[in-house]
């Protein structure tokens, strides 16, 4: 394994890097990581939740599934998923953000995160962190893609459609490996994760070649 970059990402911060086709990104964490990617040579081609769900014909993706762009091209393939069997990664949520938490507090909905109404709310979240992560490429805030939410297990009743935050997270840091199918700008946010038993934790982001 040839390590290209191996970065520690503190809790509730963003990280970004470029990577070449064929390289592998390893995201290692025990709480939520919001993740998105953009074509390095065409910044208008961005990861897209809907295309990814419809291409794979499923709402939860794992090993062998591909991340797709809005322009309908494969961007990455999940080549290893240590969360498989423990929980699902999410493609329903947008990013959390300072305004999102402020609205939840204003509407008395913080208790939906399982820690009650009195928790302090962050002044920023994954939206702001992904803006930072993609900072080198100056992606406008409104064009930050809704992400793949790694390790964000969500309880969904497929009959009623009801979505509930879940505290189901890895007990120890585990990883997911993504192989680039094109040259990419990638960004990840170490989510403040208000639903996790001990809130958001730092993550490790590694790009390597086999």
């Amino acid at each position, binding site marked *: 394994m040839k390590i290209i970059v191996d970065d520690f990402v503190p809790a509730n911060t963003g990280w970004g890097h470029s990577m070449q086709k064929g390289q592998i990104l390893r995201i290692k964490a025990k709480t939520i990581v919001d993740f998105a990617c953009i074509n390095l040579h065409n910044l208008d081609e961005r990861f897209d939740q809907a295309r990814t769900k*419809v291409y794979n014909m499923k709402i939860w993706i794992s090993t062998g599934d591909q991340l797709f762009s809005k322009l309908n091209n494969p961007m990455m393939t999940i080549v290893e998923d240590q969360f498989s069997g423990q929980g699902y990664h999410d493609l*329903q949520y947008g990013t959390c953000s300072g305004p999102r938490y402020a609205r939840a507090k204003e509407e008395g909905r913080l208790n939906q995160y399982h820690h009650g109404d009195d928790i302090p709310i962050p002044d920023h979240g994954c939206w702001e962190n992904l803006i930072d992560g993609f900072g080198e490429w100056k992606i406008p805030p409104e064009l930050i893609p809704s992400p793949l939410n790694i390790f964000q297990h969500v309880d969904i009743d497929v009959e*009623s459609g009801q979505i509930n935050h879940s505290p189901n997270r890895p007990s120890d840091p585990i990883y997911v490996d993504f192989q680039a199918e094109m040259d990419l700008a990638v960004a990840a946010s170490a989510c403040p994760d208000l639903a996790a038993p001990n809130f958001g934790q730092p993550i490790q982001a590694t790009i390597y070649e086999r």
Partner: protein
Amino acid sequence: MSAKTQTTLRPHEGWTGELKTGQVLRITAKSMIDFNCFEKDNFKEYFDTARTRIYNLNMYPTVNHRLFSKQNNPMMKFIKDGFSGIGLHDLQSSHGCPDLMLKTLGTVKSMTLADLPDPMGLFRNLKISPSGQIKPSPKGPLDPVDIELKAEIDLVCALTNCPSAELSASGADCIVTIL
């Protein structure tokens, strides 16, 4: 409520129009309709499927749900759903007829596929299994039913009457009314 405008769309036709805060958009249809909306003077503030799912904590939009923007603000409220009990509207998919939506929106603002926000797929009735598998399950109402959406800000709305055989029970006219 009185009708301010009313337009009949044939299959494969699109519509766009402005709604002021408090006005109601009634969509009377039986086949699949892709719907988008934008803040009137700020297209960076657009309807967002993910924000909408999570604000309502539900995958299937229906009465009393609110349509939310990318920047986390309320845009519309779902006040009538004639499809309730028959099938489910969709917030998982991309457009069935993206070229038609781009052409329709193009009368207001030039936009590319890359920048076209994902739609609310009215009457799409996508079946999702407990394991997360997605399967189109065309199941429109036998007769046209009403969907009503109330504007919470001044908006530009756009929709396409998109009766793809794979996704929709049948092609039929759609009546769009602003109340």
